[in-house]
């Protein structure tokens, strides 16, 4: 028998303050680490998390590059991180945010449960979700053979033939996980080599259940009620082919969860929040952004955690000392 999750649904924090010294939006590695640092710095700290504490960690089957854990299941790391934060006095509220008011003296957010919470400072750590390719057929078959969550839906493709689109760390992580369930996994990648880190790439290249279509892009998804075949094009030779598949998992990049802050904060065209590179303060004073949601070069668990530590420490130094 596999794991038993005993901790991921806990009762919501019942006694809330109106105003927190540090209000953290999102409970992934960046947000929880910021919480740990802020709380240890003596600030009253609330983390708002609409899904599961640990954020994207929960969706990562296996992590091999977060030291000092040579191998750790994402969910386990998420639980350890959450326990650590709670031990340090971080309050966690299981609500998402629907609105943010970042002008004026008091910063405020409205949650999906209709609650308003105020913060003297805010750290945005809402993270990112997986980006869609943008095909019309991708939207049509979403949930009908097109998936963005291998841990959720992989089990429904037992002994089936599936494809993974992408060549980065996420794509390869998920392909390796899916290869344990599916009959075969075909990685469709637009370049002639993987962008994923070498150790991970080699693992996939050695896996007998995984094969590669290099220089190939997915151009259409076909089927009656669900995915039946994929249409692909070789970007070099321009030749097209159609091949039967039962499902396709798409990992082609990240979409920042920053819609709530559009217009209020400076962002890149893609919606990544621009921060001061040293302090991680955004274009508005007392508002910070950490982790995947901010404009940065390297998005890793460890860099998100570092961001959290930097932002919280700077907040203490600049606003509370």
């Amino acid at each position, binding site marked *: 028998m*596999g794991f038993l999750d*005993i901790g*991921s649904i806990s*009762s*919501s924090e019942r006694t809330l303050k109106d105003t927190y010294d540090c209000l953290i939006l999102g409970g992934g590695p960046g947000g929880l680490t910021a919480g740990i640092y802020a709380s240890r710095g003596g600030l009253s700290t609330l983390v708002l998390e609409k899904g599961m504490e640990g954020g994207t960690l929960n969706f990562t089957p296996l992590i091999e590059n977060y030291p000092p854990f040579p191998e750790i299941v994402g969910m386990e790391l998420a639980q350890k991180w959450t326990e650590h934060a709670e031990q340090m006095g971080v309050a966690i509220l299981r609500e998402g945010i629907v609105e943010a008011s970042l002008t004026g003296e008091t910063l405020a957010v409205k949650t999906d449960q209709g609650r308003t919470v105020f913060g003297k400072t805010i750290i945005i750590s809402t993270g990112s979700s997986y980006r869609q390719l943008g095909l019309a057929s991708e939207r049509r078959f979403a*949930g009908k053979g097109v998936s963005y969550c291998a841990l959720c*839906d992989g089990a*429904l493709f037992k002994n089936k033939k599936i494809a993974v689109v992408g060549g980065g760390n996420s794509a390869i992580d998920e392909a390796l996980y899916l290869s344990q369930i599916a009959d075969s996994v075909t990685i469709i990648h637009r370049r002639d080599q993987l962008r994923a880190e070498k150790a991970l790439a080699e693992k996939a290249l050695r896996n007998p259940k995984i094969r590669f279509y290099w220089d190939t892009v997915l151009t259409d998804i076909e089927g009656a009620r669900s995915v039946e075949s994929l249409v692909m094009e070789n970007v070099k030779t321009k030749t097209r082919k159609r091949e039967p598949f039962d499902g396709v998992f798409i990992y082609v990049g990240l979409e920042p969860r920053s819609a709530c802050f559009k217009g209020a904060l400076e962002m890149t065209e893609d919606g990544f929040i621009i921060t001061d590179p040293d302090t991680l303060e955004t274009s508005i004073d007392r508002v910070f952004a950490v982790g995947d949601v901010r404009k940065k070069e390297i998005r890793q668990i460890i860099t998100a955690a570092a961001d959290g530590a930097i932002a919280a420490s700077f907040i203490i130094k600049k606003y509370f000392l």
Partner: protein
Amino acid sequence: MPLLKEKDQQAVREKFAKELKNPVKLRFFYSEEDTSEETTITGELLEEIRGLSDGKISMETIKELDGEKAHTYRIDKTPAIVVSSNGDERDNIRFFGLPAGHEFASLLHTLITVSNDYHVELPDTLVEKVRAIDKPVKIQVFVTTSCPHCPPAVVTAHYFAMLNPMITSEMVEANQFEDLSRQYGVQSVPMTIINDGKQTFIGSRNPEEFFKAIEEAL
């Protein structure tokens, strides 16, 4: 060998000691034809949970799928679990399939909520709307046990059933009930089916949005 590791047993015991209030009843349905490993393990798992509750949780095991009890509780497949407060005979909060992985969290949370006078964590305005439903509603939430998005969907559906006996809420483990999953074309979870397909949606929705789908199904 117990299914729950010692550390987890301790955590569940502590959680129960702190959060269980009134007695809770677990009804476990299995059938002799169903010899699946999942069904056997479900029974063992429930027995272990019961043992960690300091007498707060009682369990009734019901074997015959075609028997009177299964009929009374509207059980058509196994393994099945019905959770209710010890004093009442409600059958509208249900789990089909082994609630392992993330669904174990759904089960624990359901037990605790039932034990606390069905006190759900939903906004008051929504509670009123759910209570006002006066037609039968059946919610099936298809899940896999490795799906981190799934427990919130199951818990929301169960909350609705706790508030209103007209609403029946079922967790259905998609892999253990393949035919049913195929019938509804389940290829992504959580997938929520309301009134046998009147409304269907994929993914986890906040409770307000979830409730809108119920209104649309009526």
